[in-house]
């Protein structure tokens, strides 16, 4: 379970440009939930993910995973239990290393990066099987450098790599936003398949309202650092895109747009 308690986050604190993003923000995400997070630009979606992952510091508040307080834990240590896929497909893979080497790197996560051979030959068949599940034919291109793959192929690999070792949370930061509609669809289906198969607690930030409605079992809408909509289970299942759009319009009118 992930819990954010009384989170405060300011940008440019102490200057004339001071901007409060989160004031006394609280959020609880239960085991096995697949949360889609939507909201306009600047509503705090990505900041929320960055706070959870430890990419940026918070001003005050507590973040708990299970019973453990991870508020002060450095980013890289948190990643032991978190898998993260970024909007930019280049962020999740090493372009100058081969597909095989990338898979081997991801497979070593959580183990010691010592002087054993980087690629365990006995695991190659396993990597092939994993790549086969993507259905992109990458299993026959093990020696190809990831840099020559297309954005969609790289994102598929990034998704596979971030979920290869046991993790507790999957963080998806607009991970289909940089892809063409067809590829975005493929990646989204793949994401759902992996999340279901591995029973991952997932937080997905997206601008694609259809994905937000169709996938996951909880829907959050953020606005100016607050959750203005939080629908779970059946309530979420009954939600249509038009409902979200209506809410979106309401928010925009408030802002004077």
């Amino acid at each position, binding site marked *: 379970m992930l819990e954010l308690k009384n989170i405060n986050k300011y940008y440019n604190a102490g200057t004339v440009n001071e901007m409060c993003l989160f004031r006394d923000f609280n959020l609880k995400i239960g085991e096995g939930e697949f949360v889609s997070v939507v909201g306009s630009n600047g509503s705090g979606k990505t900041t929320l993910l960055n706070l959870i992952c430890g990419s940026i510091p918070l001003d005050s508040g507590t973040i708990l995973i299970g019973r453990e307080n991870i508020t002060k834990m450095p980013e*890289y240590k948190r990643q032991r239990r978190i898998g993260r896929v970024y909007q930019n497909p280049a962020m999740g893979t090493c372009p100058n*290393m081969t597909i095989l080497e990338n898979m081997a790197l991801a497979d*070593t996560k959580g183990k010691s990066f010592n002087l054993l051979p*980087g690629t365990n030959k006995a695991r190659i068949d396993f990597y092939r099987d994993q790549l086969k599940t993507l259905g992109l034919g990458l299993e026959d291109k093990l020696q190809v450098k990831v840099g020559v793959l297309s954005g969609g192929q790289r994102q598929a690999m990034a998704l596979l790599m*971030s979920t290869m070792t046991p993790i507790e949370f999957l963080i998806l930061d607009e991970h289909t936003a940089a892809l063409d509609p067809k590829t975005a669809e493929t990646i989204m289906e793949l994401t759902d398949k992996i999340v279901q198969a591995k029973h991952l607690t997932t937080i997905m930030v997206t601008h694609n309202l259809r994905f937000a409605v169709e996938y996951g079992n909880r829907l959050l809408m953020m606005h100016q650092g607050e959750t203005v909509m939080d629908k779970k289970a059946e309530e979420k299942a009954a939600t249509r895109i038009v409902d979200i759009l209506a809410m979106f319009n309401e928010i925009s009118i408030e802002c004077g747009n």
Partner: protein
Amino acid sequence: MTILLGILEEGLIYAIMALGVYITYKILDFPDLSVDGTFPLGAALTAGLIVKGIPPAAALPLSFLAGAIAGCITGLIHVKCRVRDLFSGIIVMTALYSVNLRIAGMRANLPFLSQDTIFDNEWTRNQVPDPIKPYILVLILAAITIICKLLLDWYLGTRSGYLLQAAGDNDTLVTSLAMDKGLVKVIGLSIANGFAALAGGILAQKQAFFDISIGTGTMVFGLASVILGTQLFKRFSMVRTTTAVIAGAILYKACVAFVISIRIVKATDLKLITAAILLLILVISDSLKRKGAHPHVGA
């Protein structure tokens, strides 16, 4: 023949340093100027140790260690004090200048011509058959350089080596793998400067002489070797980059020697030539890159 041997000898020595620059410049993408200080650090330490009666072969691993510590400091300054990469290198390089003078006994040069070295000892003087003697220097150097290359190849193939490559390629991924990317950079800089100091120690033993100015332009030589080597052998995927770097160092040395041999050029113009050739290599390799760039690579 003597000229050719001279080129090979110096080329092979600088190749070891270039292997270090390959780690920082090519793998980590870290412009590490500390090699200009760690190369003479290795030379000063080796000279100092040999004068004190330490076996010349033992002076070399100690030089590597000293260089590695200096590289570690560059890394820590960059990672822990959040100083820009270029500045961290400059700070360490400048500080090392004084350290090197101290190690050499507060003097700018330290000859040890009467002492045994790895090139001039009981074995090379008496055991080596006469016909091989003129080549013994090159043979010993080739052996050391190849051992260094094989060790580096092996390391880059380990889990730790994979992580080092990942750190230069996409350091976000290192964080995603739950590893501290700062630590990885420190390790890379240590190994790189270890190689630089080792090369310095070997050069000092070859000359039986330490001079404080030995390090000037080390970085330029290293960069030129790496870029020349990797550009020339880019199309040959069979050739390992470490091999290409060694070839680059020897070729670069040959280019410099060739220009110096032109009559109007004086030996004192050496550093000017060194710099000019690097500039030429950079310009040519850039124009080649523009022609054949793949849209996805490096995006």
